[in-house]
């Protein structure tokens, strides 16, 4: 994970959120580096902390949540400075694509109003600029879309508009949080391809937060797998998703392969996604290979190869 001059560099990031029984550390010990033009997938199930991690980088956590990190830099700027540092970056050099595009628009304003707001920020005053950016994401009837209210467009079309808006900002880093989860498979592919085209055009880095393994394999250079608030495996997408080493990743891939192989009874993973426990391995309660060592000592992230890291006491079981 040593990138010469990373765009984004994160060391020992933790997020603490308020809970019914006091503050609770939902994410801990996150180390990440992201190079310009690179796509890193952040894979995990619900409650694994992948969305919190993405939001923490942009300073968009819900109120009451607290971020700590040993290092949190974006292009040399220390993001630990909070809003004074982040506010000028967001919407200019840091962009975001959200899961629910409907919620990203003001329902009382037409699409054109939203596009113009973004273009003003960029200083682009060409009369046909909004239509240009929409046609860049494959919207054919741009004028009709610009005149529409958000509720008049499909989820896929709104997601396109959102990508056009992010594209117009030409940010250096885009955090895409489950951008295809609410879409049909066919539309999802189109959206992923648009994100990639955007990246090829501007050379931006993308942090792609998802639970969709196929989408991650399709889009990402590297992936990080999160379990209970911690990265348990990180490496090239091909290595992690085709020859996984962590028991969680292996179990996940086995269930997906089982469905594709038309097994009469599907291979199941044991247990349910759980919360972060203190002490021990984050995957302890669901792991078929857990032993006393896993209960007493949380495993550290160790290198299998120079670019493939694993958090497990039993990498060869």
């Amino acid at each position, binding site marked *: 994970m040593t990138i010469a001059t990373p765009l984004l560099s994160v060391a020992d990031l933790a997020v603490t959120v308020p809970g019914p029984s006091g503050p609770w550390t939902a994410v801990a010990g996150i180390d990440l580096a992201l190079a310009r033009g690179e796509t890193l997938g952040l894979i995990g*199930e*619900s409650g694994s902390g992948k969305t919190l991690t993405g939001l923490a980088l942009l300073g968009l956590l819900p109120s009451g949540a607290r971020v700590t990190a040993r290092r949190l830099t974006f292009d040399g700027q220390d993001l630990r400075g909070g809003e004074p540092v982040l506010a000028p970056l967001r919407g200019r050099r840091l962009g975001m694509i959200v899961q629910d595009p409907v919620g990203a628009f003001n329902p009382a304003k037409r699409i054109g109003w939203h596009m113009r707001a973004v273009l003003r920020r960029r200083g682009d005053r060409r009369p046909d600029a909004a239509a240009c950016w929409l046609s860049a994401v494959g*919207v*054919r*009837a741009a004028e009709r879309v610009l005149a529409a209210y958000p509720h008049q*467009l*499909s*989820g*896929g*079309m709104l997601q396109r508009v959102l990508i056009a808006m992010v594209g117009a900002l030409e940010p250096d880093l885009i955090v895409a949080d489950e951008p295809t989860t609410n*879409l*049909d*498979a*066919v*539309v*999802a*592919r*189109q959206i*992923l*391809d648009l994100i990639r085209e955007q990246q090829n055009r501007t050379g931006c880095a993308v942090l792609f937060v998802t*639970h*969709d*393994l*196929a*989408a991650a*394999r*399709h889009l990402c250079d590297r992936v990080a797998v999160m379990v209970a608030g911690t990265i348990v495996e990180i490496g090239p997408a091909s290595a992690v*998703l*085709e020859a996984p080493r962590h028991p*969680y990743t292996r*179990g*996940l*891939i086995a*269930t*997906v*392969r*089982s*469905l*594709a192989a*038309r097994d009469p*009874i*599907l*291979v*199941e*993973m044991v247990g*349910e*996604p*759980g919360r972060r426990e203190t002490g021990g391995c984050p995957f302890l309660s669901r792991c078929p290979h857990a032993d006393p060592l896993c209960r007493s000592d949380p495993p550290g992230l160790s290198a299998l190869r120079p670019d493939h890291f694993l958090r497990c006491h039993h990498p060869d079981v």
Partner: protein
Amino acid sequence: MSLASRWRTPRMRILDAVSLSLAPGEIVGLVGESGSGKTTLGLTLVGRHRPTQGTIHLGGSPVALGTPAQRRLQMVFQDPLASFNPRRRVGDAVRLALDVHRIGPPSARGDIVQALFSQVGLSSEHAARFPHALSGGQLQRVALARALATRPDFIVADEPVSKLDVSVRAQILNLVRRMNAETGVGLLFITHDLAAAQFLCHRIAVMYLGRIVELGTPDAVLGRPRHPYTARLVAGTAYDGAAGMDPRLGAREACFYASACSRRLPRCTQERPPLDETGLACFHPKDLPPEPGRAAIPALA
């Protein structure tokens, strides 16, 4: 059971001349894109919508809304958390189904609830929890237990695994298959996940804009699709539905797929192809070029 419903809003006919029958204990998959009318058909079957036209028969007799026959039709929804009352313990939610339909003597209903929970792999400890204290997969198990509580002939399951984590999906799909084998309950499995449909279903119906365009065994429909839309769906190739006007707003006496179809002939825009006895609604199933387009996200190898 058969259904022919025409669901009309002031502006648009969402389901159009849909006929479908399920044998006892059969699992029929309903696949298609968002907006094709899958969910509307499911909700109409369980009496949530009143069809503008057509009837629903259960075991040979027509079903009227709000009658005891409704007990025999149950529903499992996509979003497990939204389908439970947040202020009612999940065991009580299952118990409510027994109370409403007066199943078993009141003194025995607690035991029936226990039995249902263990049938879906949960304990009495889970039954005492509120919905927010259960995971998505656990809640979907409770939803299945609640649906089974009334001993239905038939359950409409609307995307029951699409909101669940990948690690949990296989558990629920295996459970649904086991429930079907153990209790003989039939299932309308609404999904856009073709692999899941292939795993669970005895037959698959493909819907496009409110009409069934192809119906048959999974191997036939997904393995050797005959309708050009099914071929496109299976290949996962793109159809830019946003490009044109919704055909449902225009002439009904046409194939709705005609405007997107590379095999279109004049007849297709003048006449509607009916679903024939082989389970196909297309005038030109063969010997025409494959549908162009871009593939969906490739599956993991």
